[in-house]
């Protein structure tokens, strides 16, 4: 096993007396994309900002290709960052914007040449002299990505770059971004609070909640074998029974009567939806919380029971 390309070791961030996150560790191989998923306010963006140098870790170490990243000044860190908004300078043309960082190090001629070639590659060569407000949201984000990549960073940080886009554009762009990052062999950390987006973009996903990485692994590991109730509820489609047990939602069923085989919850049928030809029931549990389960051929009834078959109950395997 080769040494990791990026090694984040026991980093913590404290603000006043509040711990934003504590003792986070993970590593990435060259060209790997890590999705960092989790609810808002868990410090995902702060983690990226600390790695980029826009904020400081309270403790910990970050090594990139064996050298200490945190000792370097922000402008000397080989890290690129794409923000939630494209943040293109509004008074500069697309070409000027994309070439901005490169121009500072390599001069105007080389920066413009490289920017032109990249913009051609991403299909924006017809918009070189347009101003950001003349471009669509998707075009702006693509330009922001190219602007960061032009500096050939060793690590690219993407902080919810699609959150300001409408759903259609978002879907197209995330597929394009993954393909582009893979083509560039760019090691990246991608922050999102959308589990589908995390699965689509990342080679692996880290679920971050309550100031810790709760689980890190391949999408199927996280989805099918969540290590705890938090990961299960954030990343997987399961019914959490208690701190140790869960049942995949697809194994539960709706019934108008209780069962003796397995467990049941009294619930109220709220409505139903269809997904890939299957019918799903959205039910409100009497004990609180709402879940989605396969509706089967059952006729919708206002009151009924969510049945958990005994042999489908599984256990969290915290490591």
């Amino acid at each position, binding site marked *: 096993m080769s040494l990791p390309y990026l090694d984040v070791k026991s980093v913590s961030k404290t603000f006043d007396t509040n711990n934003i996150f504590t003792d986070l560790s993970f590593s990435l191989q060259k060209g790997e994309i890590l999705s960092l998923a989790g609810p808002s306010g868990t410090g995902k963006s702060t983690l990226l900002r600390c790695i*980029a140098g826009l904020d400081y870790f309270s403790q910990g170490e970050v090594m990139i290709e064996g050298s200490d990243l945190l000792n370097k000044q922000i*402008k000397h860190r080989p890290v690129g960052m794409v923000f939630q908004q494209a*943040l293109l300078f*509004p008074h*500069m043309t697309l070409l000027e914007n994309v070439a901005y960082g490169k121009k500072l190090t390599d001069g105007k001629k080389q920066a413009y040449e490289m920017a032109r070639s990249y913009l051609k590659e991403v299909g924006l060569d017809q918009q070189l002299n347009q*101003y950001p407000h003349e471009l669509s949201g998707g075009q702006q984000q693509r330009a922001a990505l190219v602007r960061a990549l032009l*500096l050939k960073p060793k690590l690219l940080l993407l902080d919810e770059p699609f959150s300001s886009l409408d759903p259609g554009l978002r879907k197209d762009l995330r597929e394009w971004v993954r393909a582009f990052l893979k083509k560039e062999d760019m090691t990246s950390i991608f922050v999102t609070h959308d589990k589908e987006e995390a699965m689509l973009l990342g080679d692996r996903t880290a679920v971050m909640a309550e100031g810790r990485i709760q689980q890190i692994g391949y999408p199927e590991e996280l989805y099918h074998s969540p290590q705890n109730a938090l990961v299960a509820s954030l990343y997987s489609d399961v019914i959490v029974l208690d701190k140790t047990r869960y049942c995949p939602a697809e194994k539960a069923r709706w019934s108008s009567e209780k069962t003796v085989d397995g467990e049941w919850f009294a619930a109220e049928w709220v409505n139903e939806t269809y997904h890939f030809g299957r019918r799903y029931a959205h039910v409100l549990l009497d004990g609180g919380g709402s879940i989605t389960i396969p509706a089967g051929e059952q006729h919708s009834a206002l009151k009924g029971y969510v049945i958990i078959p005994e042999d489908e109950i599984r256990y969290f395997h915290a490591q």
Partner: protein
Amino acid sequence: MKWRQTNGLILLLLPACAFLLLAGGSLLLAFMESVRGESGFSWTYYSALFDRRELVDSLLYSLIITFSSTLVSLAAGWLIVRSFYPFIDGNGKWMVWIPMLFPHFVWGYFVLLLLGQSGLISTFLLQTGLLEDRTLFPVLVQDQSGIGIFITYVWKEIPFVILMLLPVYLQLPKQFKEVNAVLGGSGADWFKTVEWPWVKPVMFETALIISAFVFTAYEVPGLLGVSYPQMTPVLAYEWFYSASQDERTMAFALLMFVALIFGTIALIGFALMNKRRMLLSKSSHRY
């Protein structure tokens, strides 16, 4: 009701029209006065303006005071805003308004009372024994080099510059600071790429307002100036009230000439900066 719906826009525009009529009408009347020769229309008074030695001296004197006081006010106000805006929250902004409550004349009178040879400072120095005689106190007001006028304007316009620039600084797009930093930019790059483009239009407007005011306002040089050289507005005032009809017409010609120069500078400046202003207003930053 229907009449109101149809003519609502015209009603709303009435105050603006009244203002334009007043300013535009005055300008037109002044122009007509300035080209009224003995036998009808004439440019004579314009061409005769620069034959008057006192006008050439006055223009030079006015230009020096205008440029120096505008420049110093802008530089000092800008420096103060740049140094302190991170510490000013929304509640502290009202303090900047306090100096704006005093008219220029009151400020000028205050400078006279403070810095005159028989003013408060010289009296204090005399009474404490630090000064033997009032005549030894430097002539700072009603002096030939216009120091009193300069001090009054600088003192009065610095708060104005702060008032104009503070909102710009409080609304500077800080997100671009982070973009600049992660792209390897320095503080100088941030200034060149973001701060200056955002500040420049307001700086230009402020400079134009101050210089137009200093160059054309009567009260401060009237109170703190000397009989020679005089600032242009004082000269225009004297010509206007002189017994000679020719001088009255020349006063109009002089003021029209000044208005033309400032109007042209304003038009060129706005034309050059409007596109940039429009682009800046389309920024996608959030804070």
